[in-house]
């Protein structure tokens, strides 16, 4: 079904544009393209079905120590695409004239060539929808199934050529019994019905636990276990500038005290940017290749921050292939010593939190985070689940939660591919274990 631009067509378009450059002009082309199908479910039926073909091209023109960018959208005809891009180049030339030279100008370079392609086996959508209906006769399902190829590519007039194509699916869903809900997730390249049904069954099992009598939990401080999905929510907030060297220098990183070395976290905690799984492009929007591994936090101490070339120039630092926004693209939290099978025993008395919701900083410079519990969250006593809880608000410093109060991390980790679909689908991965934390603060 795909009418996405091919690598040779993209190269052909690029070469035809590079041939029009004059003087010291240099051009970089960044392509984000997808042909996606989205099925939105409510009550286990299709609420909205959408298919989208979009090819967004960012042209970055440099000349005389200045640069300007322009985004435009492509179609399938080379002639029309070339016409669109030539018009964009004329606009960019006018824009460059309005700019002063950039003191932190980073010239385009040839950062090499690469090509990767992950193919997929996807389900028949009618069969998938009918399967859902037959498997959810006594529960209510809401969620999003998403599939199709995505491309991220980068070419420039200096010879750089990176192409990353990934065809995949994810199904992010929740099951309901009245207002009680449990969350499920299945993603990959090869749809296997038996694997999906196993995920569905495990979510149904969790929903059953929610039928236990509700446990009243007063505001206060409790030991809690953040299951990997909840840990992903909590640590995900660090992506809001936490590891950005530029934001750190401008006072906007919640990890300022860690990298100032006025604070430290638990020696059990190590985080790294890690591209070894190959599911996320290592090249950024300038085509620079990040190292396969960048240690961000090692044994509770601040190690490297993510530094883009532009930030490096401004603050005389060493760039490490970071994106313009200097947020992690493939985060790995190293596992701990706690077997998942012993989580309840180790938790003993406290809260088992499957998911968190709507996190935000309540005091960013000091690393204080607030948010809500969501989905299957339980009160545990004597190492046994006693029953579900009503949603609780937490408001806690990450320096306490991931510092002295971090008891352990689980031995097992889970993978969370990026499911964000704002404007377009995106690449991204977080691998994290669960976190057992003491004295976590819950509010009224």
């Amino acid at each position, binding site marked *: 079904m795909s009418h996405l631009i091919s690598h040779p067509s993209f190269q052909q378009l690029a070469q035809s544009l590079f041939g029009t450059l004059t003087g010291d002009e240099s051009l970089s082309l960044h392509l984000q393209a997808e042909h996606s199908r989205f099925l939105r479910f409510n009550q286990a039926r299709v609420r909205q079905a959408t298919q989208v*073909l979009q090819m967004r091209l960012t042209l970055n023109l440099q000349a005389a120590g200045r640069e300007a960018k322009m985004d435009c959208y492509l179609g399938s005809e080379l002639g029309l695409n070339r016409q669109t891009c030539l018009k964009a180049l004329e606009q960019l030339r006018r824009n460059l004239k309005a700019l002063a030279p950039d003191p932190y100008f980073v010239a385009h370079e040839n950062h090499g060539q690469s090509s990767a392609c992950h193919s997929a086996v996807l389900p028949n959508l009618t069969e998938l929808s009918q399967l859902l209906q037959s498997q959810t006769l006594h529960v209510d399902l809401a969620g999003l199934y998403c599939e199709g190829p995505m491309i991220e590519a980068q070419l420039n007039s200096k010879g750089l050529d990176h192409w990353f194509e990934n065809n995949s699916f994810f199904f992010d869903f929740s099951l309901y019994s009245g207002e009680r809900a449990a969350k499920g997730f299945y993603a990959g390249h090869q749809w296997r019905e038996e694997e999906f049904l196993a995920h569905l069954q495990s979510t149904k099992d969790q929903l059953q636990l929610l039928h236990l009598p509700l446990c009243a939990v007063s505001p206060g401080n409790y030991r809690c276990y953040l299951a990997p999905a909840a840990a992903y929510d909590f640590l995900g907030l660090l992506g809001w500038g936490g590891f950005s060297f530029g934001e750190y220098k401008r006072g906007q990183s919640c990890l300022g005290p860690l990298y100032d070395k006025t604070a430290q976290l638990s020696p059990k905690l190590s985080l790294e940017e890690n591209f070894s799984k190959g599911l996320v492009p290592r090249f950024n929007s300038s085509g620079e290749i990040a190292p396969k591994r960048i240690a961000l936090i090692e044994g509770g101490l601040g190690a490297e921050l993510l530094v883009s070339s532009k930030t490096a120039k401004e603050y005389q630092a060493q760039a490490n292939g970071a994106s313009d926004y200097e947020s992690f693209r493939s985060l790995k939290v190293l596992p701990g010593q706690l077997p998942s099978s012993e989580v309840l025993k180790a938790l003993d008395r406290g809260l088992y939190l499957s998911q968190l919701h709507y996190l935000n900083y309540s005091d960013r410079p000091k690393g204080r985070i607030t948010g809500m519990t*969501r989905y299957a969250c339980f009160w545990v006593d004597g190492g046994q689940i006693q029953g579900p809880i009503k949603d609780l608000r937490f408001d806690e410093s990450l320096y306490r939660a991931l510092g002295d109060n971090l008891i352990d991390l689980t031995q097992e980790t889970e993978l969370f591919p990026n499911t964000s679909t704002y404007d377009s689908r995106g690449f991204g991965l977080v691998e994290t274990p669960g976190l057992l934390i003491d004295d976590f603060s819950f509010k009224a």
Partner: protein
Amino acid sequence: MQSQENIYNLFKLLKDSCDWLSFRHLNENSTWHTSRDGRTEALDRVENQGLMMEVVVEGSLAYGGTSDLSPEGLKACFEQTRQLAEQLGKVQLNRFDPSSRGRFQSRTDSSSGGPKELGPWIEFHNQLSAKLKGGPNVLSASLAVGWQDTSSLYLTSDGGQIEQTYQKLFRDQRLTGSLDSTLQTRSDHGYFAQSCRQESEALGADNFDQDMATAERLISEVNELLRAPDCPEGPRDLLLAPDQMMLQIHESIGHPLELDRILGDERNYAGWSFVKPEDFGRLQYGSPLLNVVFDPNLEGELASYEFDDSGTKAEKVYLIRNGLLVAGLGGSESQLRSGLKGVANFRAQSWNRAPIDRMANINLEPGTSSLEEMIASVEKGVFMHTNLSWSIDDYRNKFQFGCEYARLIEDGRLTSVVKNPNYRSNTIAFWNSLKAVGNASTFEVYGTPHCGKGEPNQVIQVGHASPVCLFKDIDVFGGS
């Protein structure tokens, strides 16, 4: 760019090949300039053009979006979308009768805007961010400004045709100060809160004197915050400025009243709602002083429009009157599904997403109290300004919000500045604690381009206008 003639021709060719068809063609051009610490950080232009089609086959509706506007691209998109509608016919939650979508007349607003010369526009922004950066204890300062020209064409196979053209301006100005180990940020009314719909002659027309005065105020206030104690903890009367009321209305009135949330569409992502269908006409949402409207016609407000993306004429509707919940935020589909009254708010982020129920301009109507009267009535309170932090549960009930700047109110007078002001409450209890609503002299209009919702995800532009409002006995607190 493809001509509209091509779009019309393809529409004519395809419109009888299914039971009902619509084309929504969008052409949106934006220019963004970001200045930091006195120099240009980025100059970006976005020319966003594409088309979303709705194809109905035997009551089964599917959406198809494409950036390939060639005749072959549109035909391929139509075939794939029709196939999707056919494929899913038996498993759709709802079936729609296309005739319910109606017929409409064309309307076109004024045409293109934008600054006449880019160079002086950029230079002015750099001067302004240099001015902010030059203030005492300022670590970093930025100014981001964007203008956007949008034109859309909506065609339906039962004869509907709507053309709309808008110009919008987006603006964010902020600085971060540092003193000893304290960091504080102050902005011009919040993150891109100075975003609005513009008349073409006003676009890009920065007011040098006014903007320099704003810069002076922000520098002064961030320095006050750097030396201020934390906001005290405990129950106090809470006076909220319009630039925080914007967020308060958005999170605890706008989202819970969206009918698609109430119908459960959003449960897996943004969440459900504590509001039940039977609450309309019965629930005392707030004190009798509370009057809230859906008003897509307020001049200059960001989400003003004539028709939503289902072609429904947009008109002012009361959502809450004298504290009583009377109507929800649901477009034509949600109204059919729920049997409830709604509004014209079936809106899509862009051509690449299907419309869903969204806020537009959700405004709180002015009351009768002057600012001085409200302050004088408070023995022990806090006056908070400008949203900084927001978090609310998935039923839109239990919330915690933070602001940039606050002053204590003691014995009827504004006194010292406090930093890191936060408060938390529950939606219905909070709105029922509303004890005074400011008059028209305190009414201010803001907007945000960043309201997120939906699966697949969408951000949309919304506007919020409000007077200053006073709430009784709210739990407030400070930073770490």
